[in-house]
């Protein structure tokens, strides 16, 4: 087939991009070459709209071993141990085919982690669905949860935490972000940079089929009515093969035969081979007849663009082929020498003895387009003036019931009970806590991790929202007693060619960056997902932040469950009573405007560090950060977790009980302390200039507000845990 501009446009390239390709090559590319360009130059692989802004991110820190640019980021957790982690989106495939889309999202992120030599030790996920009233939501939720579980459970890696949101902006475009943490010896990390010429290039794992061809291009396209037709571009996952691949790769990595290794993710063999060669400033020669195929008569074009799962590309030391092959034979996996590194700096493909493609690698990698897209600043919305009449018609106990059983607040136990969260025998904080925590096997250390997003805040004011998500991740780690170390981000946005969406992206990044710098909480890995829009309607800007922290002695793990009755409950940090953009304003008052809660980074850092100090002194019995739903929801969750009650003292300062209990002012924590420790706690808080209020005291079962027993913990638990089960039954 003769290539022309129309074919190029069908491949997702813009006419001027096609022209640039022809100019660079000084000729018209053939179809295989065009396919390769379209894969490498599309948004998903080239980050052409985001690169300029991603460069600004704070990526350095004392504990950062590897920042963005590799398969995953790596941080130092002491004693030669390092944690490899990353989050990645699989949004479009999951909307088209929820089970396989979500499953292969989990498979892909785990491969990114074990490619670096790390054994995966924990999975997390952040999933966003449309309104609970939307006709597709239930099936999508069921499918995604089954897919995530189906893959992670089979591999035997615990899913320790996650986040689920419902909002109508995701009606036509759900989000599935999967995150994995792996453990590696910091002296035995593997990278994707090839080195040396005439080194054998090895293909291992599953055979190549026709699934997922153009998956990367599909990820960068806007959805329309014909979306169902895209089903064949969704890859099919095989967790069993991935488990074998994991074990085989780790076995091969125990000696020194690997020079570089890269998983075949988006754009499969194309991007993996080009990335390894590009990073090593080398050429690469591949003989495509040698690629193990599971279907007959596959063309070079199909082989290069297939996104069949569970495959890896390895550059080996010369002479190690036989010993490496033995390992893959043992695990019953394909192993084929398909080419070698060269000094041509070109990618050269052969098929049936003919040269079928020859392109300088720098054209594909360095010369990929980079755009400075126009963007629009979002103005800070005016504060809403709530009037007393807004509150008068409300009944406090009804509000509590409505809030605690709200889909975005209620327990997600229906979801996480379908994930194996205890396999590997090191999960010490299960899902449902502020962060998931796993022990570093065989040591005293434990790693905490959480994943967060706040799309409503980001939509109202992207810069503040961006800061808030980073702070939320920080707080979640602090709440389990972990020292926050670093983050990974998954940036889910609409169409970057629209200046409003591009503006949301730019300003969220600026916000993330500011908080990340201030908190010394660098970004070490991440992924961008644009074009999350259907029929012209974009999603709310949804940067998802995965945080990782360290607990030096796992015996000091902190949890949110109230421990015993008669203890004092304190709110750390100041309550101002802002209701704008709170769940309360949204759900109870139906007020969706206004600015998100302000972020004061000084207080954020100071309050968090002081809470860690208290935990170190073993003063709090339980800790929980205040987030969605404010103090009331925070305190009730602590009651539910501990199966206890609370008596709220009469609140001071603020005039309105709703503002006091439901404001989502930032930088706050609720802690439980024994009465006779109050003095000690008070003196530490005062010394560090941290504001606190006495909220109440723990009771046996009753939840007492204004001296009136309002609910029992059993009743509140029923509201909290019941909603999702009912919805899904």
């Amino acid at each position, binding site marked *: 087939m003769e290539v022309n501009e129309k074919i190029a446009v069908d491949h997702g390239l813009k006419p001027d991009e096609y022209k640039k390709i022809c100019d660079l090559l000084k000729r018209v590319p053939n179809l295989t070459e065009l396919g390769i360009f379209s894969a490498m130059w599309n948004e998903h692989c080239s980050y052409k709209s985001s690169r300029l802004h991603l460069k600004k991110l704070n990526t350095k820190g004392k504990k950062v071993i590897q920042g963005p640019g590799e398969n995953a980021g790596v941080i130092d957790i002491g004693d030669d141990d390092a944690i490899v982690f990353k989050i990645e989106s699989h949004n479009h495939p999951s909307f088209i085919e929820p089970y396989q889309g979500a499953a292969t999202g989990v498979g892909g992120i785990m491969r990114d982690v074990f490619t670096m030599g790390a054994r995966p030790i924990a999975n997390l996920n952040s999933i966003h669905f449309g309104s609970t009233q939307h006709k597709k939501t239930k099936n999508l939720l069921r499918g995604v949860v*089954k897919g995530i579980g189906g893959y992670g*459970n*089979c591999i*035997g890696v615990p899913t320790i935490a996650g986040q689920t949101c419902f909002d109508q902006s995701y009606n036509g475009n759900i989000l599935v972000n999967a995150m994995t943490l792996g453990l590696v010896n910091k002296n035995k990390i593997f990278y994707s940079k090839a080195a040396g010429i005439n080194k054998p290039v090895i293909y291992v794992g599953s055979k190549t089929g026709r699934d997922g061809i153009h998956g990367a291009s599909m990820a960068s396209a806007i959805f329309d009515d014909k979306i169902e037709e895209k089903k064949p571009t969704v890859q099919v996952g095989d967790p069993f093969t991935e488990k*074998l691949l994991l074990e085989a790769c780790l076995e091969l990595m125990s000696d020194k035969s690997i020079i570089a290794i890269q998983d075949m993710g988006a754009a499969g063999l194309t991007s993996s081979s080009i990335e390894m060669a590009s990073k090593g400033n080398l050429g690469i020669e591949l003989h495509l007849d040698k690629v193990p195929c599971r279907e007959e008569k596959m063309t070079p074009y199909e082989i290069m663009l297939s996104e069949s799962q569970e495959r890896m590309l390895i550059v080996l030391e010369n002479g190690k082929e036989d010993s490496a092959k033995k390992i893959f034979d043992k695990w019953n996996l394909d192993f084929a020498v398909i080419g070698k590194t060269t000094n041509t700096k070109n990618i050269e493909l052969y098929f049936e003895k003919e040269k079928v493609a020859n392109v300088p690698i720098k054209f594909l990698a360095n010369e990929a387009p980079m755009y400075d897209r126009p963007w629009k600043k979002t103005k800070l919305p005016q504060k809403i003036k709530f009037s007393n009449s807004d509150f008068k018609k409300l009944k406090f106990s009804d509000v509590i019931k409505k809030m605690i059983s709200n889909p975005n607040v209620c327990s997600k136990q229906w979801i996480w009970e*379908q994930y194996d969260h205890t*396999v*590997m025998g090191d*999960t010490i904080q299960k899902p449902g806590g502020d962060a998931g925590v796993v022990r570093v096997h065989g040591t005293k250390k434990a790693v905490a991790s959480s994943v967060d997003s706040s799309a409503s805040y980001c939509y109202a004011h992207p810069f503040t929202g961006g800061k808030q998500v980073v702070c939320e991740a920080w707080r979640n780690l602090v709440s389990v007693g972990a020292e926050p170390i670093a983050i990974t981000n998954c940036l889910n946005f609409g169409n970057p060619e629209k200046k409003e969406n591009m503006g949301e992206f730019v300003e969220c990044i600026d916000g993330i960056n500011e908080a990340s710098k201030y908190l010394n909480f660098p970004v070490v890995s991440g992924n961008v997902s644009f074009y999350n829009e259907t029929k012209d309607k974009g999603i709310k800007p949804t940067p998802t932040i995965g945080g990782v922290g360290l607990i030096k002695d796992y015996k000091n793990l902190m949890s949110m469950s109230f421990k015993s009755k008669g203890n004092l409950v304190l709110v750390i940090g100041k309550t101002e009573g802002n209701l704008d953009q709170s769940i309360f304003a949204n759900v109870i008052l139906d007020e969706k405007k206004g600015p998100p809660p302000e972020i004061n980074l000084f207080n954020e850092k100071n309050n968090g560090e002081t809470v860690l100090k208290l935990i170190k002194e073993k003063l709090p019995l339980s800790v929980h950060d205040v987030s969605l739903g404010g103090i009331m929801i925070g305190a009730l969750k602590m009651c539910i977790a501990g199966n206890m009650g609370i008596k709220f003292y009469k609140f001071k300062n603020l005039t309105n009980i709703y503002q006091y209990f439901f404001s989502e002012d930032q930088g706050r924590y609720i802690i439980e302390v024994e009465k006779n420790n109050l003095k000690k706690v008070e003196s530490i808080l005062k010394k560090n200039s941290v504001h606190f209020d006495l909220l109440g005291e723990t009771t046996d079962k009753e939840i007492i507000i204004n001296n009136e027993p309002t609910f029992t913990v059993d009743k509140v638990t029923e509201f909290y845990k019941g909603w999702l089960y009912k919805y899904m039954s």
Partner: protein
Amino acid sequence: MNSSVIIFPGSNCDRDMDVALKKFGFKNKMVWHNDDELPKSDLIVLPGGFSYGDYLRCGSIAGKSKIIQSVIDFANSGGLVLGICNGFQILTETGLLKGVLQQNKNIEFICKNIFVKVNNSENKFFENIDKDVLELHIAHNEGNYFCTEDELKSLEDNNQIAAYYCSSDGKVDDKSNPNGAIKNIAGIFNEKKNILGMMPHPERMIDQSLSGEDGSIFFENLLKNLK
């Protein structure tokens, strides 16, 4: 005491079982599914996981794997065999244990703590155990035990039911049945009671920091009974 844990491709609780056995004093060896013979052992364990991907029927391919004949010979000569979760499924596939494990009644994977009432008479696994209601952990998609009426009768007549799902105070009722298993059966023995298959994972409950510690009671007692 010597134990061996068999690793099938797709096993994923093999390490957890190894850790647990060693913690309570077993000298444990890991055995690859393609090996010809078993090391000298007092206890063989088939661990949890997804052997061979469990794509056909859970445990069916593992039930025909190379090492399995040695396990059958070992069991038939009276050796102690323990199958947990996928291991239980494999044991039913080999015919060493009766019945089958169907998909959970709610067609969902379930991962949570449950209680089981254990049978502590005439068997090396639970005899002399301190508690007869243990809090253990399940994590499975196919744990819904089923057998024919005749088989059930002979299991009951022979005292072969090893564990029932129950409430925290030992009541065996529908409410405490997590997966729809017939008669709340969580585990069974063979006739001679030297083979135990059960869905709950004691190896995930061996430490105060984990979901609980009743798994420790199980392993400590087992070791004592073997000495």
